[in-house]
């Protein structure tokens, strides 16, 4: 039977012959991940399971990135639980302090995840690694504890929606806009329990960073995974980030897709997801003029170097509007350093942006940029649920980096081409 990419990836990690969607299979795990919010619960479950040692100290990763630098005593206590567990288990990859990056930007950059892997993480945006051709998905802390102990987990083989990307992206349109456009079409539960598989001429042209941005938001369509083929570009990225032995992987010709959706980038405007669901997507021209109080540029969705370059191109020679707070959070230390070397940090400072450390902070209303009642933000993050970034009476509009930077300069949502 010709297999989808999801089926092929699972098959590589399972001894059971995969026959199609709905089947439940046990798979060996390449990597298991948790963060400072989810690891403490996972560690508690790990103990209750009677486990003593993680299955492989090189393949259990904890990144303390959500409420760090620790925002209060309670979050400091949670990080302490992570730190002590990492020390006890001699985890090779524990991140706290100067080596912390936003987990889903950090792991691909360090070559810890890559083509052909099966990864589970106690964070819903674990699906990001699908951009490199990894079957990667979010689970809760207890499933992660099971994975940490056993090095395996069970999956229900998902049916697949094929997403054909065609046309060419204009100057201010990128992976984020394509993904918002898709979520606008299929809705926040359009891919519930399903895999998204990105194909088409435009998919091949997209950079790995743009692919990671798209796969990151598979969960916003309810998806289990968002997969790009492990093609030459993905393999080159993996090799450049220290991995060896990865192989090309794509779906078989004739594989069965439950549905095929085409997204054509030709003539596409920058896309904006309006409150309070990521599916409320409109072209920027339809929401232009809405005054904003805050802009956030960063996160696991859009905090990579290409995103910062895109934002800096808008900020160069411009200032953030007086009434706007613009917060720029490079997603990893390496991205920060690169932005510094390229002069981007100086551009952000000259424009009166706040440049902070890598953290998930404001995306989930944790810290470093909380909204008051009646305030409106534009953000390159991934969720605009009611109250996500602070007050229940605040609003979040999601966009790509260029549109967020342009809004910060104009003080209102605007087509970046007009800056």
């Amino acid at each position, binding site marked *: 039977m010709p297999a989808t990419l999801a089926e092929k990836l699972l098959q590589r990690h399972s001894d059971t012959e995969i026959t199609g969607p709905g089947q*439940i299979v046990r798979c060996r795990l390449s990597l298991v991940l948790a963060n400072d*919010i*989810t690891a*403490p*619960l996972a560690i*508690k*479950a790990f103990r*209750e*399971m*009677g*486990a003593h040692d993680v299955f492989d100290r090189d393949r259990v990763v904890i990144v303390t990135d*959500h*409420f760090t630098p620790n925002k*209060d005593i*309670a*979050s400091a*206590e*949670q990080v302490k639980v992570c730190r002590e567990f990492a020390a006890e288990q001699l985890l090779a990859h524990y991140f706290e302090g100067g080596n912390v990056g936003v987990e889903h930007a950090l792991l691909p950059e360090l070559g810890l995840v890559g083509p052909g892997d099966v990864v589970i*993480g*106690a*964070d*819903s945006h*674990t699906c990001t690694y699908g951009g490199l051709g990894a079957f990667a998905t*979010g*689970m*809760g*802390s*207890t*499933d992660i*504890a*099971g994975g940490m*102990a*056993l090095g395996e987990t*069970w999956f*229900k083989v998902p049916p697949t929606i094929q997403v054909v990307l065609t046309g060419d992206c204009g100057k201010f349109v990128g992976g984020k806009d394509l993904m918002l456009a898709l979520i606008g079409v299929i809705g*926040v*539960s359009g891919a*519930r*329990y399903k895999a998204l598989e990105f194909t088409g001429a435009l998919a091949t042209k997209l950079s790995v960073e743009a692919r990671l941005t798209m796969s990151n938001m598979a*969960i916003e369509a*309810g998806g*289990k995974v968002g997969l790009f083929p492990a093609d030459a570009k993905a393999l080159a990225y993996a090799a450049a980030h220290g991995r060896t032995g990865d192989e090309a992987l794509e779906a078989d010709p004739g594989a069965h897709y439950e549905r095929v959706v085409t997204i054509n980038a030709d003539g596409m405007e920058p896309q904006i997801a309006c409150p309070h*669901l990521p599916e409320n997507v409109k072209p920027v021209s339809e929401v232009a003029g809405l005054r904003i109080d805050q802009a956030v540029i960063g996160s696991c969705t859009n905090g990579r170097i290409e995103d910062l370059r895109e934002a800096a191109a808008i900020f160069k020679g411009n200032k953030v509007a007086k009434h706007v707070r613009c917060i720029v959070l490079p997603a990893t230390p390496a991205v920060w350093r690169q932005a510094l070397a390229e002069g981007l940090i100086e551009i952000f400072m000259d424009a009166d942006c706040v440049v902070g450390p890598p953290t998930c902070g404001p995306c*989930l*209303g*944790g810290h470093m940029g909380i909204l008051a009642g009646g305030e409106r933000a534009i953000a390159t993050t991934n*969720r605009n*649920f*009611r*109250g*996500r970034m602070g007050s*229940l009476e605040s609003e979040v509009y999601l966009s790509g980096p260029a549109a967020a930077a342009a809004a910060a300069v104009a003080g209102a949502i605007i087509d970046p081409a007009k800056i």
Partner: protein
Amino acid sequence: MYQGKAHKVGDHIDTDAIIPARFLVTTDAAELGANCMEGLEPGWIKRIQKGDIIVAGENFGCGSSREHAPVAILGAGIPVVIARSFARIFYRNSFNMGLVLLEIGDDVTKIHDGDSLSVDADTGVIDNRTTGEKIQCKPVPPFMKGILDKGGLVPYVRDRLAARA
């Protein structure tokens, strides 16, 4: 067998609504339970009696993977959630935490806010005592039933670890 009053909520109730991130600085069920649905409506918890049941629309529990969401619902004294459909990660988390979920599709319209329900989790039958209507939901797949029969994922993993030793 569970008995309680139905509290209806809408479609796409996300985990930020069930338990906002600012409360995720603890793993304590009672503390999380005290803030259950605080992101939907401040003070929602005050109308809940122990044993009450949430009845939701489509895609309940979408968003983050936080297991704190089912823990908060259980901590609020709610043992069962009935919905038109559930988000994937939330479904799996609830299953692991022992929160009973019943997915009933369009039959969700047969339950109204305040109805008195009785739920048999083994047979999947919901008895709406207010209307007298009975609703049958889909059975749990056999593999997952096996985990349930072991008492949840924690004892399941404990047994698998013991079998390897």
